Every structure is written in C-alpha cells, then in structure tokens.
C-alpha cells in the first residue's frame, strides 16, 4: 500500500504535466510553417479554390526555401465557416497566419480585434496602386486602417435560359426595365412552358447571406436611396415602403408559385441545387444570382461541367423597382486575404499575400474562380477578358455596384433580414408583419440607433 501512494501521485503528476505540455506544444509551432485557412466547397467535386491555393502555396515554398505552407481547408457552409475561423482566431494556439475573409464579415472581425492592420506593408507595396479604390475600401476598418487585400469582387444580375425564353415567345436579348417586367416574363413562362421553374430569387435562412444579398438587397437597393442604413445620420433605417415592397415581391414570387417549391427554396442546399441541377438541367428559366456562377460549370474543378452554357444562357441587369435611374442595380462583395492579430508570423504571411497577388497569380485566380478583377492591370489582361463568357457584362456592372453597410453589426442585421424573408416566403407572416418584426429586432441589434423613414 505504501508503495502505491507515491506511485499514484507520480502518475497523476505525469499525466497532468503530459496533458498540459501537450496543450502547449501546438502553440507556436514551427517558425517556418505558415498556416492558411480558407473555405472548401461543401460539394467535393468543386475544387477550384483548393487547387488555386495549393498552386500558389507550392510556388511560394519553391521561391522561399525552408518555408512551408500548411493548408487548412474548412469544409462547411458559409455561416459555419465564419464561426469556425472566428473561433480559431481568438487564440494564439489555433490562429492561422493567413485567413480568407468575406468582406461581409470583415468589419465585424476588425471590431472584435481579430485582425491585424496591414498599412505598414501596403505602404511599401508597389502593386497596391493597381487596386480599384472601391476594392481598397472593402477591407478598411472604421479606424481608417486596411485589414485585408481583396483578390476579386463580384456583381449580380439576371441569368436567363434562352431556349426556354424561345419556347415562351420571349426575346433572346431580354432587358427588363422594371420589377413588373421581370414578373410578367416569369408569368408568361409559367403559362407557356409548364414543368419549368420561371424565376429563382434566393430567400430565407437556409441560403444565409446569399439570400439577403442576391435576393433581398438587390430588390431593396432598387427602391430608393439609403433604404437600409443612412450614412448622413449614421443610423439604421426602419419602416420604409421599399422594405415592404421588397418583401411583397418575394410574396408574389412564392405565392404565385413562380419560384422553386417553397420547401426547396428554404432548404440550405438550394444554392448548390440551383447551380448544379436546376440550371444545367434546363429546369429554371430566370435566376437572380452572382457573376461567379460560371465557376460551377468549368470543365476542370467545377461541380457540374456544362460545356453548352455559353450559348444557352443570357444575362440581363436587374432593374430598379419602377425603372428609376440608373435603371439597374448591382451589389458588389468579394473576399480578402487577411492576417489574424494572433498570428505568430505576420511578416511571412504578408509575403504569401504578395505571392497571391503577383499579376500572374491574380489573373490565374480571376480566370479559375470566375472573379471580377479588382486590379486595373488584371482587368485589361486579354487572358482575363476571354476567360468566361459574360465576364465583360459583369465587369461592366462594377461601375453601378453598391456595397453593403460595412459596419460591425451588419452580419446580425443580415440575419434579421433573412428571418423576415423566411417568414414571408413560408407564408407565416405578411410583408407588413415581417417588416414590423424586423424593425423591432433591428432596434435591439443596433441599440436603438435607428431612424424611421416613410
């Protein structure tokens, strides 16, 4: 018995020490290894980004002997990806050295102190002059410092199937000028081409930010100036007619069964479903979606190779509600490469950002990822201009594209909009009720900094 006691105590000590040091081991890691976190598509067939990051990482290792890049692809839906990287960035033990950030969330992460300002590096970097001013602004915090380097942007518009349009007797060079004209075309298709979904507008919580940006805000921004946030008073806007009208549009689409079946529209898989099934299988006539869609149909790394799409699909700008100037609406977003504050190797991480943004690699990404270029030299590159049919159309929308309110609370406001959309789409609430519920929730999210507009 007496011999057991010291042994037990020793075991306890060894165990405790072992586990404690095991925790510590992962912390700093190797000084020469960079950890890079980025999202991996939930569809395993889509490897566009993985392939590109891998390509750049290997080139970086070759150019910097002794340095290693460890890739951390995170396979999750968009919202889960954000939560995951935020958790990783909170602790120096888990923080990656480079992280791929959606501009939708970057201000929230800047406010949380998760990211590192890059101004000292940018000041010494000649290529920064090539970036469009709007793109530079995308990753600027409220403190005026820049926290990320964008590698592309995106714009939004209507994709339509010319074959279906022909069957319905609609023009092949369709240019709707008002919401009513969009709905009228959808009704014609419903009447003349049965078995086809006339119009898809992403909605609800399942599609997350895709529904709010491609769906709701494309509508809302066409109803008038500053319908979401008023920069003059720095307050969030409640009670507008534009908000209700946008919800009313959704009710028309889903109430008249012009859109996908409601149960499909609200499912989290709807985005993949639209891009890899409904569109290539010619089951969807009009889709309000982003410029990157062609990425899904690339012969290599795409989720659903579809060689005929350039001839089948047409593109049109999304109109403002009643055709008010400039007649069309688009929103721009995009992603940036950022360095977490807890990164142990910021200098090396910056070097990798530079590698990502050599002109050669930037063109490579814009071509592979169906991105809209944010650099002037890339936008003028013939390889880029010829990369995807329609890229000139979507690049042309950059001029009129507007941005979401780049504020830390935006992601929460977005979640509240998604709930309002879901309530209207499922028929649980009228547009007026859903708008009222949103106004209430908004007041608590932004601590009462709201202003009522008619």
């Amino acid at each position, binding site marked *: 018995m007496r011999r057991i006691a010291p042994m037990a105590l020793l075991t306890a000590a060894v*165990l405790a020490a072992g586990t404690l040091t095991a925790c510590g081991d992962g912390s700093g890691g190797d000084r020469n290894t960079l950890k890079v976190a980025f999202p991996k598509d939930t569809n395993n067939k889509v490897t566009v980004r993985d392939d590109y990051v891998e390509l750049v990482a290997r080139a970086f290792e070759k150019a910097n002997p002794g340095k290693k890049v460890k890739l951390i692809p995170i396979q999750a839906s968009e919202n889960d990806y954000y939560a995951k990287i935020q958790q990783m960035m909170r602790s120096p033990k888990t923080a990656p050295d480079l992280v791929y950030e959606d501009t939708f969330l970057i201000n929230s992460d800047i406010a949380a102190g998760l990211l590192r300002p890059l101004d000292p590096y940018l000041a010494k970097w000649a290529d920064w002059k090539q970036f469009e001013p709007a793109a530079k602004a995308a990753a600027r915090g409220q403190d005026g410092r820049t926290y990320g380097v964008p590698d592309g942007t995106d714009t939004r518009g209507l994709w339509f199937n010319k074959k279906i349009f022909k069957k319905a007797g609609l023009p092949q060079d369709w240019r709707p000028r008002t919401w009513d004209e969009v709905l009228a075309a959808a009704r014609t298709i419903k009447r003349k081409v049965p078995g086809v979904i006339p119009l898809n507008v992403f909605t*609800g919580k399942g599609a997350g930010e895709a529904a709010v940006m491609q769906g709701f805000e494309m509508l809302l921004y066409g109803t008038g100036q500053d319908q979401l946030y008023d920069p003059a008073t720095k307050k969030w806007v409640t009670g507008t007619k534009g908000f209700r009208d946008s919800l009313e549009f959704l009710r028309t689409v889903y109430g008249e069964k012009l859109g996908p079946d409601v149960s499909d529209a609200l499912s989290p898989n709807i985005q993949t479903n639209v891009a890899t099934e409904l569109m290539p299988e010619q089951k969807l006539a009009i889709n309000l979606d982003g410029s990157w869609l062609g990425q899904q149909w690339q012969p290599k790394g795409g989720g659903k190779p579809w060689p005929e799409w350039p001839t089948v699909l047409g593109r049109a700008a999304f109109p403002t509600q009643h055709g008010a100037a400039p007649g069309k609406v688009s929103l721009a977003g995009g992603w940036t490469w950022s360095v977490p504050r807890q990164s142990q190797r910021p200098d090396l991480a910056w070097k990798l950002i530079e590698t990502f943004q050599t002109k050669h690699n930037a063109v490579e990404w814009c071509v592979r990822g169906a991105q809209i270029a944010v650099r002037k030299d890339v936008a003028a590159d013939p390889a880029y201009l010829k990369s995807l049919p329609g890229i000139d159309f979507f690049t042309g929308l950059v001029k009129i594209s507007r941005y979401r309110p780049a504020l830390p609370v935006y992601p929460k406001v977005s979640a509240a909009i998604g709930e309002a959309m879901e309530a209207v789409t499922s028929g649980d609430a009228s547009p007026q009720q859903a708008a009222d519920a949103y106004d209430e929730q908004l007041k608590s999210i932004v601590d009462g900094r709201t202003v009522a507009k008619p």
Partner: protein
Amino acid sequence: MTRAATAAYGTAGRGARPRRRARALLRWSPLAPATVLLLLFLAGPIGYCVYIAFTDMQLTGQESTSFVGLANFRRAFGDPAFLNAVVLTLVFTLVSSILGQNTLGLALAALMRRASRPVRTLTGAVVLTAWVLPEIVAGFLLYTFFERRGTLNAVLEWLHLPTQNWLFTLPILAVSFANVWRGTAFSMLIYSAALAEIPQEVTESAAVDGASGRQRLWHITLPMIRRSIGTNLMLNTLQTLSVFGLIWAMTRGGPGSRSQTLPVFMYDQAFLKSLIGYGTAVALLLLVVGALFSVVYLRLLREEV
C-alpha cells in the same frame, strides 16, 4: 465492498491518531489522479461556462467583454424564440424519448424473448446498427429518407398515396422519428437485461393462477423492472435533450424555427449570431431542464412498491 474495506482498516489502524490520518490520506490517494483530471477538464470548463453566461461575450463584432449580471437570462425569458425552443424541446423529448424509444425498446425486448433465435439475432443486429452509427451519419441517412425525393416518398408513391416534403410539413415529428430510430437499441438492451432477471417461477405461477397476459405485464413484469424503467428513462431523456447533430443535419432547426430545439437555438445564437454569452446562458438553462427531469426520475426510483 467499500464498507468492508473501511472496517478492516479501522481495526488495523487502532492506536495513534496521526497514523490513522496518514492511512486515510493513503486510502484517498488512488483517487487523486482522477480527481485532479476531473477538476481540470470537467469542473474547469463548466465553471468558465457559468462565468461566460453572465457576460456579453461575442464571437465577433466587439473587442471587450463585460459583466452583465442576469441580463442574458432576462433576455431569454422575454425572447419568443427561446420559449418556442423550450416547447419544441419538450415535444421532442416526450415524443422521441419517453414515448418512442422507451416504449418501443420495451416492446422489442419483450417480443424478442419469445422469438426464435435467428429472428432475435437479426432484429438485434438491425436495431444495434442504427445505434452504432455516428449521430451525424444517422442524420444524413434520415434526411435522404424524409426528403422530398427520398425513400419514404418513393414508397408512398408506389402505394399510390399522397406524398409531401416531410421535413417541411412535419419537421419536429420527422426529427423525433429519427431519434427513435437511432436510440431505441439502448432501451432494448436495458430492458432485455431487466426482463431476463425476472424469475420464471413468478410469472409461471401467476399464469397458473389464471392471470391474463395483460395482468401479468401490469402487476408483475412492470413493477419488477421498475428500477430499470427509471434508469432507462433518465438516461434516454438526458441524451435526447442534448441531440444536436441529428436535427442540424436534417432541418437546421427550420423551416422558420419549427424544429429549433434548445441545442439548435443555442448554436444559432452563439455561433451564427455570435452571441456567445447569451448562447451559454441558454446552455445553462438547458442544464436546468435536464436536472429537473433527473430529479423527477430519481424520486420515482426511490419510492418502494
């Protein structure tokens, strides 16, 4: 066993006090590693959670965290979404654990006692497979079963019955069924063991005395396995209260919030809305719900027949 051991040491240790204390210490020492580990890895995180529940910690959007007292709890009780989640959690637990897994497990165990050996083996294997599958895999399996183009609708179509999107029209029942499917094996095993313990003579003599099958079940079998019922109900309920992966894979709490039980609501608040403090407070409230259930079951266990 412990009492006997203590008695033995007690007699041996008669005499000097310090020696007895040393021996007492010595007796505790084998527990030391476990105690240290428990404190470090179990009590530590729980304590930290309790602390977070009283702060306004966020995942993103604000840098500093401050103490807010009971604000998170007040917010929960004024939040219709929270109350909705509590109701759905109770429905989910009642339907899938107490009615579903428990009753079905007992029925299966009773039937299998009479079944032939091959039938018993086969049924056991099938039910156990469902239990062995990881929760998330079971979730995806049942998603493909209930989905609009899934197996269930294919069967219904074949029978010329109307089909519908079950995950949209009856989400809470669909996930409850999924949980029954997954968790029945556990109840079945517990009840199989309990039923095997009942002495044959008792039921046989009751049968000789003219007791019907139902009377035997009600007056003999159930009272004799009462303790197993209590234990099983408690374990089932606690496990069901914390089901997350299954629901997340099948419906993500939707459509709207029609299958948003407390764990899903917690995840939504903490990680999607980044309100870590509020989410943790909800987690503590879930702990309270679990504790309440346990107290009820423990009381049932304590009463003698």
